[in-house]
């Protein structure tokens, strides 16, 4: 199997792929990016927490006109994973409003986005409908 690297550092690969967040030890606010401090309370202590791999689609759009080089159509969404909001594409679903609906139950899924010159695969993530 080719060596793999996650598309972003908050995606943990392995047998049980999942997302992680920086959680403020003072107020509990969660962030996916590298932090200087907490935007909610200003403190700078964080722990790493696992994010639920199942969730519900709270908002979506089907992008059919994108920047050059970005394949369309794709479904962009906000997924509520047990109270933590996650930005992601919806994958393994037909990109049309008949198949993508608000409130839809989804779960995390990974996909290889490509390999670099050394053969290392970059692995991204999205959410797919439960039952697909």
């Amino acid at each position, binding site marked *: 199997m080719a060596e793999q690297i996650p598309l972003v550092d908050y995606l943990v690969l392995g047998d049980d792929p999942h997302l992680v967040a920086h959680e403020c030890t003072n107020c509990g606010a969660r962030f996916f990016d590298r932090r200087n401090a907490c935007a909610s309370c200003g403190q700078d202590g964080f722990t790493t927490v696992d994010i639920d791999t199942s969730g519900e689609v709270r908002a979506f759009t089907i992008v059919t006109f994108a920047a050059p080089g970005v394949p369309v159509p794709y479904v*962009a969404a906000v997924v509520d994973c047990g109270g933590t909001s996650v930005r992601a594409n919806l994958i393994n679903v037909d990109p049309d409003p008949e198949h993508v609906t608000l409130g839809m139950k989804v779960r995390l899924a990974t996909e290889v986005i490509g390999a670099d010159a050394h053969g290392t695969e970059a692995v991204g993530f999205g959410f797919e409908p439960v039952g697909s």
Partner: protein
Amino acid sequence: MASDDLWILGIHMTKFGKHPDQDLVDLATEAVKGALADGGVTMKDMGVIGAGNLMAANAGIGQQVQKQLGQTGIPVFNVANACATGATALRVACMAVKAGETDMGLAFGVEKLSGAGLLSGGSRKEDSDAWTPSGRYGAVAPVDGRIGTEIMPGVFAQIGMEYGHKYGGTSFELFAKIAEKNHSHSTLNPMAAYQKKMTLEEIMGDVMIAYPNTRPMCSANCDGAAAAVVVSGTKLKTLSLEQQKRAVKISASILTTDPWEEACQILPDVNTLTRNAATQAYEQAGVGPADLDLVELHDCFATAELVHYDNLMLCEVGGAVDFFNSGATWRDGTTPVNVSGGLESKGHPIAATGIANVWEVATHLRGEGGNRQIEGAKVGLAHVIGLGSACGVHILEKAAA
């Protein structure tokens, strides 16, 4: 007019649209000269300039305009605050006058955007030969289109959809009907970039950009400028009766940013900062949403207009769909919204927008709205939002005289 009141003495906007023969300085000077002439004053009367331009924000547009219209040595604040840039420039002039540093200030915003296309996301670069994590997410490749979307039509589509998920009642057709209203309104506005009435079928059948926003449901990139002269109540009393009669009171001038909320760094929260700005503005002005005779709000996309009915408290919490369906926001409704045609048809030359919407409201309060005049308009509100985020709200009132 109390001594610490703020007033708009003169205000002007260029026609929005394609201006291939005018550069940024030409457009800005046209707006500034118009505002000065409208107020019966000159550059020599100005004590401060708030200058707004976003796409060439490092170019010092304020000084460039001074070099054409008068290098009087006064302080210039060049500002950039996304789509709230114009409102921010106006806010700077208001703060300077309110603080007593000067009794008259100038604000302008200018942008050239004709043919600009999508304004964010950018072209996706080729994936690199060796995956190397970079940036604050440790990304090894571009993420726009791979982890959600960065394009504005898609971001604001989700904002409208989120409202629908929370309260129900939204649909592609409902959002398209909002665009139908604004395009209909634009037919009466000669300053609009587009004055084409569009049927619901035409809007829904047009090119889909990011569901549910089709092209005519998106703000129109175009060129334009707008400028305003702000004067203190004390100074206004010393001016002519004609100037006093045409002056429009700035009852509230508010700028907010987005307070932290869960999810606000996932999908921009345009709601909380707008609601906060509106709350502060109504309190400062001593008026309520029911007092408003017209509203110009930031319909950068049809999906955005809906949520701002709620955020500006024009309707009950969760009631934006019913409010729109009641016809309230058409020009003959109880709370006319975007009688100018809004950003979807009047156009959205970013930094000009936050002063052009103030111009629209002021023009109705002066009774100078021509065939699109909202009869008897006494109080109006102008709202803009820039992602990042910043929200400007100004409440204006007709002069008592």
